């Protein structure tokens, strides 16, 4: 942020350019500074009051080093076989794919109603509030709800995870939609084009890169979520093996290996996403 070093705050009078001291500080800038200052103070206060009494940093980092070493430099499959792990990994990826695809389609239509430049503001606000509420409910709770209603299994995991997926993407998509230049929308509006044709013919093509990037971020999150709570719903995914290795057998080596597998998926994903984004952006 550009700031001016003027020591004299009384001279901050934009409307008095004749004075010797000319200030660059406008009112919005002052507000921004206040906000930043408040956030900084909160952070410092919070860090100062963090309870870390029983912590010996030297020991902690030493032990961190040892554990990271065990995890990342000596990964092993532990008691499981590669076949089991890979199959479970594929299950996790499938869960993530399902929740992402379902979430993306549902979210796009809701997002249109939640974008302030398309929908009336009461509707946009209402949808955004509902979405905020859905996101406030922990994923594990959604999964629980649907294992009660539908029985334990992958279906419950998918439906439970999709709720967050939708809520997140609605927010992301609607903000992308809000960022499309009002001018281009106007150009079509000015020729009498109706609402949905504008959405599909003008907005959608303009925000494809943003949509792609959001959807891929969400895929990543869905993948992480599938790993974290898929096992709770008995979806037999890699999260089950991770939970067992981590919480039951304390096998750092196997956890390390599973983390590597997850990273492998993430990197492949990142590469695909970069390629697609590049494909859409390079022509600018």
């Amino acid at each position: 942020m550009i700031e001016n070093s003027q020591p004299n705050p009384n001279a901050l009078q934009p409307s008095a350019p004749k004075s010797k001291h000319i200030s660059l500080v406008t009112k919005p800038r002052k507000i921004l500074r206040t906000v930043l200052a408040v956030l900084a103070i909160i952070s410092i206060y919070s860090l100062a009051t963090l309870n870390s009494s029983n912590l010996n940093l030297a020991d902690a980092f030493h032990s961190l080093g040892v554990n990271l070493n065990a995890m990342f430099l000596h990964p092993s499959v532990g008691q499981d076989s590669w076949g089991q792990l890979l199959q479970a990994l594929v299950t996790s990826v499938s869960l993530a794919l399902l929740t992402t695809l379902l979430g993306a389609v549902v979210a796009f239509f809701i997002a249109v109603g939640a974008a302030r430049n398309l929908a009336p503001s009461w509707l946009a606000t209402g949808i955004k509030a509902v979405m905020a509420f859905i996101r406030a409910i922990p994923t594990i709770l959604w999964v629980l709800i649907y294992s009660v209603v539908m029985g334990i299994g992958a279906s419950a995991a998918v439906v439970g995870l999709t709720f967050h997926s939708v809520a997140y993407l609605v927010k992301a998509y609607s903000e992308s939609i809000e960022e499309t230049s009002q001018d281009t929308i106007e150009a079509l509006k000015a020729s009498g084009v109706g609402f949905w044709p504008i959405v599909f013919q003008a907005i959608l093509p303009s925000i494809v890169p943003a949509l792609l990037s959001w959807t891929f971020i969400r895929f990543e999150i869905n993948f992480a979520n599938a790993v974290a709570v898929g096992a709770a719903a008995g979806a037999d995914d890699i999260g089950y093996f991770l939970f067992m290795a981590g919480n039951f057998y304390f096998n750092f080596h196997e956890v390390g290996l599973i983390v590597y597998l997850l990273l492998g998926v993430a990197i492949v994903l990142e590469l695909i996403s970069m390629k697609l984004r590049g494909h859409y952006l390079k022509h600018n």
Partner: protein
Amino acid sequence: MLKVIQLDKTYGSNKHSLKAVNFTAQPGEVTAIIGPSGAGKTTILRSINQLIRDDSGQILLDDQDIRQANKGELRKIRHHIGMIFQNYNLINPLTALENVLHGRLGAKSTVAGMLGLYSDDEKSEALALLDEVGLKEYAYQRCDQLSGGQQQRVGIARALMQHPKMILCDEPIASLDPKSTKIVMDILRKLAREKQLIILINLHQVDIALEYADHIVGINSGAIVFEGPTDEVNDGVLQKIYRQADQPGAVVTANEN
């Protein structure tokens, strides 16, 4: 005939951008709105097809007050008003051809519009229009790969694709070279003459206005200071139009070329 009566517009709470604007534009004629930067030219144009809505006054197109139209009616009216923008306002990632075809969307059913289902005739017509503005070979290029001038011409083809009754142009030639300017202005004049369209153009270039317009509307600080046939415009009139509030020290003379 377009008749603008006592049009008023205030941005925010204090900025009075249009003050009791009155003028008419006839079918078959090119009407140019000229005036200094910030005078309100763009604001007038956008009020006419109600892209700016919180205004007051009357805007009569063939005796129908556009300001009174409900949503559905407004859509129909707008489909008959082509608009050409200062910043092109094309959908960048789409091809020139697709952008031109967007001119047909207003006439389509929702579903056909959503899916972009155009008839073969429409596609051929779009290509022909691109040819007319000299961009046939760029038909399949993404719009953000075209130079400014090329983009603007796509915008013009899009407006023509609407088969409009009236075309509103907001500085359509600001980024065109003289050659393209001539081609475009000729097309617009020809359309006015042959199809009896109302053509309303915001212009910075007084010379072009004087050459092509039949009717001139001069605006300064949101108020009409001149309206009349082109041959009534003289140096005194231009001086009045271009007297500027935000350049108090400068001598007021019209551009003399």
